[in-house]
């Protein structure tokens, strides 16, 4: 009779899909935190709940950036490095960088966790610094970094610290998306650095390798594994400050000379600041540049909206005139825009009828010449135009009857 197997044997059998066991290095130094601090040449902060390593560095800023940032309310530029991308309770921020403007430099304090048991100490230090009343500036911090820190504080029951986190939080990601995503084809911080700020990172650690470095260090690897992570994190924070200055600069007029910029996004930003006149100026320039491109129509529509809102319906019509001078489906569509402006914003039904009739003629011409759109496109456009024509004719006739009877 065989002996029943031990739990250990059964365990071995049960572990069907074991991941590749990570490489083991030399045992970690007896005092991990002190060793880490020594290696990095950093300070070791002791607290009653653990130890945390503080790496302090400064990044020089150009005069222009400093000039812009000085005009803004005091800020804390925040970026975290984490053990994963989920915001579940097992993901930990092991490195939190907080940048502040200090003269003509950015002073960055990087709080680094020596090991998990010390997390309470890191969280307290970070909460202290964030709770100073200054606003937060981050990149995707609303969705990721802040909820993660809140989750960590909750796990540790540090509710008072939680309450001190400032409410004002300027997350640059949504703005960057509006301004740069279309021209750059993406709005990751790296895209924006390269395409907008002109920063080319050299020997940068890719973000997806960050958790692996941390686990490698924890499992007895050298603290040196974290040096690249610290550099990567420092660059992220520095970019935050540069990007904020750049965006504020754009808002204050630098858009006139900017090369990488989505005009629609910029208009949205300007309107947010109440700068309607600037918006129109921007659109006029953009329309000139984009003539003939796909985005042309949406830009014209935006400009129409702004002009109409400013009570300048004449100028709104002018925007479309150039586009009507062709025999094409697009030209007919431009006439319809003109008709809309006349009908809705000037109450000019007869004028709208004329513009719609013009659209109809343009389509006839396009059909006869066999250009300016496929037969199917012309056919579809015609149906729409005819429907509009019938309606306008009815309305015009009704209005004339009313006016006639009133006159009589």
């Amino acid at each position, binding site marked *: *009779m*065989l002996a*029943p*197997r031990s*739990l*250990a044997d*059964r*365990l071995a*059998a*049960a*572990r*069907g899909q*074991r*991941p*590749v*066991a*990570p490489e083991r290095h030399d045992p970690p130094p007896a005092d*991990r935190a002190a060793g880490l601090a020594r290696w990095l040449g950093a300070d070791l902060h002791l607290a009653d709940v653990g130890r945390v390593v503080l790496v302090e560095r400064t990044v020089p800023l150009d005069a222009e950036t400093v000039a812009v940032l000085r005009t803004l309310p005091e800020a804390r530029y925040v970026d975290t490095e984490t*053990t*994963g*991308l*989920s*915001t*579940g*309770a*097992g993901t930990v921020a092991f490195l939190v960088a907080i940048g502040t403007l200090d003269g003509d430099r950015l002073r960055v304090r990087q709080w680094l966790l020596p*090991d*998990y*048991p010390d997390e309470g100490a890191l969280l307290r230090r970070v909460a202290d610094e964030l709770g100073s009343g200054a606003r937060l500036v981050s990149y995707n911090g609303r969705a990721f970094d802040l909820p993660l820190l*809140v*989750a*960590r504080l*909750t*796990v540790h029951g540090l509710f008072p610290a939680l309450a001190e986190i400032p409410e004002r939080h300027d997350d640059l990601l949504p703005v960057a998306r509006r301004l740069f995503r279309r021209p750059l084809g993406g709005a990751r911080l790296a895209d924006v650095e390269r395409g907008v700020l002109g920063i080319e990172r050299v020997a940068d650690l890719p973000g997806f390798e960050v*958790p*692996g470095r941390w*686990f490698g260090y*924890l*499992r007895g690897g050298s603290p040196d594994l974290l040096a690249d992570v610290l550099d990567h994190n420092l660059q992220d924070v520095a970019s935050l400050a540069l990007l904020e200055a750049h965006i504020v600069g754009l808002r204050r007029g630098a858009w006139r000379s900017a090369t990488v910029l989505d005009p629609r996004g910029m208009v949205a930003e300007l309107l947010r600041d109440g700068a309607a006149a600037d918006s129109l100026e921007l659109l006029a320039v953009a329309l000139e540049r984009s003539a003939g491109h796909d985005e042309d129509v949406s830009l014209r529509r935006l400009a129409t909206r702004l002009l109409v809102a400013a009570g300048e319906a004449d100028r709104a019509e002018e925007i479309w005139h150039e586009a009507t001078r062709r025999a094409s489906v697009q030209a007919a569509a431009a006439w319809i825009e003109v008709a809309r402006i006349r009908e809705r914003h000037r109450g000019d039904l007869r004028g709208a009828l004329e513009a719609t009739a013009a659209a109809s003629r343009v389509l006839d011409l396009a059909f006869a010449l066999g250009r300016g759109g496929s037969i199917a496109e012309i056919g579809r456009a015609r149906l729409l135009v005819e429907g509009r024509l019938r309606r306008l004719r009815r309305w015009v006739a009704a209005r004339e009857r009313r006016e006639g009877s009133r006159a009589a």
Partner: protein
Amino acid sequence: MIEARPGSPADAIAGLLADATFAPLIRAHRVLEARPPRHAPWPDALDQRLKTALRGRGVEGLYTHQAQAYEAVTAGRNVVVVTPTASGKTLCYNLPVLDAVARDDAARALYLFPTKALAADQLVELRALADAAELGLKTHTYDGDTPPNVRAVVRSAGQVVITNPDMLHAAILPHHTKWFKLFENLRYVVIDELHTYRGLFGSHVANVIRRLRRICQHYGADPIFICASATIANPRELAERILEAPVSLVDDNGAPSGQKHILVINPPVANEQLGVRGSALLTGQRLAERLISGGVQTIAFARSRTAVEVLTTYLRETFQPPPGHPHTIRGYRGGYLPNERHAIEAGLRDGRVRGVVATNALELGIDIGGLDAAISIGYPGTIASTWQQMGRAGRRSTTSLSALVCSSAPIDQFLAAHPEYLFDSSPEHGLVNPDNLHVLLNHLRASSFELPVPATERFGIDETPLLLDVLEEDGWIRRADDERYYWSHENFPASDFSLRSGAPENVVIVDTTGDRHRVLGEIDLFAAPLFVHEKAIYIHQGIQHHVDRLDWDERKAYVTRTDVDYYTDADLGITLKVLEVFDEADEPPAGLRQRGEVMVAWKVTMFKKLKYHTHENVGWGSISIPEQEMHTTSTWLVPPAELVNRYDRDTLDGALIGLARVARTTGALLLMCDPRDLGVLAQVQAPFTGRPTLYLYDAVPGGVGLTERLFTLVDDLVQACRKAVESCPCADGCPACVGPAIEVGARGKAVVTELLAGMS
């Protein structure tokens, strides 16, 4: 005997029982007499608003079981309530929960239901009562159907959160920081339909509860558990196994019920030689037609999805509505989309739907009210399920009827011959094995993501430190200087495994008829090869669909509507490989008996096309779908060599098929489990033993302890098989014992008898 009122359902039932054509088919007829209600006084402590609200809804007093549950729970004891369908079980937990919220609006409760449909139902009921009591209760379901904007509100402000174990496992526990208001103030955890948490699923759920407890402890809460279960043999044991805490049993049902007739019906013999009886489906169809045309609202349960669709089609042909009117007959099974299901449930409640054909999806406590008649076509596999299905028929005051129509399956024929087994023996045990190592390791992993695990902590078993070492060695967690293990991996462990079957995902069925593709439904990965292989006829709501393409990697089946006169039936081929022997009995005279770990692989290789109504074979095709496999535990028997040497290979082959069949039936009875949980395979020359071998295995990955227990019962198994075969009156094999001679060979029954005698 029958309270017949002209034109009433009771009248129609009486007519049926008096009908001479049905009488010979009735193998047993029991009458459960009507019972008056038994009330208990209102508990003194009960919030006045709740009492008023209940009175306003026509509740004049609590039934005895409701009062008992309230008292036990408010005294701080965990309870499990076991009373029949429609006995007011829901109030057993809604009452203490709402009472707690009425006293303190910071109090929180968590409700777990096995399905989203049940959760949605209970939300309506709970809200109705809370609104009537003007409690301003904040409650919502939290599952895949919850809109994103509602989720955040439920997390922070939901006083009663209604969800399912899968959601608790994958979405709530791993994100407990977002739920700390719930966990900090958690008073009650309600687990309804406890009996569904058995086998592998139950083993997983027990571990989810372990994780839940760790988190509650972290936030300083110690909730009381209120469980409700259908009738099983060991509700208290099951609850204590899942909760790992003492539980009080409440089973003194005080609810009234009308008179109830219970029938066991055996279709007539169709082929003496083959021992084949007429189709249970056709007999069930005739019974349903008879009842429905008499105004009896009827539900028929069929064993398979295909049977459901076939019977729905037949009944719709019989009960054609006038043009422009909706069908009064509906099919209902898993795989229908929520809206479709809700419409059917509402139709049943308001009476527009007169007949429903369902799989066991409706076995659970979906609120459709009581129906007049329930027909189970084929034994549902367990006594508990049978009573659940039969419990669907039953009104508070009027007569109802429940019938089991036996199929030609061995266990059905056993019941037709011995109906007393159904009435008198105790229902099955709910077995779980929370310490199944696969399950345990996965949940310990998930739990360490949720909160670090101290090296001294016990998670399920005393050997927890050993498991932690394993997880550390595999790179999931790491022990820090504070003697605690911390999650040290990038992945999110709860998304790595599912609580149900082993199947991580479903196959989506896409209807490509017409311009736009439309999702018809889903089917689980294990069932997909059987039902949506290429060229299969997949029937949905009585409409046939031809499977044009099965994209196995993308988990999508593309179908188009079709109209053919056949349906398809796929063959499953199983192979088994022994990986390791754990245990061996040394009784050479009776043959070899071993227990160990095996790998079972199954593959669907071909299908048949069967004509409607005649079921004749009109064609076949081959199927190429990758093989599926699982590791599980098995007990196997090898008859003594000198015994098997007497027979030629063909004889032995047939006899082993017979032996496997009878062993599965009696094995399931002996273990009191669903025969579907017990896999069986006979190999005339098994690669591992080199001899004829009969394998019985747990039909779930890792096993739930069935064959481990069976190993200690092998002698009983052999004896029970002998009794079943020898006491069967047939000459040379029938479906009730070893199977018909055409399958097991002319000498099949004799050889099985000899084999069993030699193995005793």
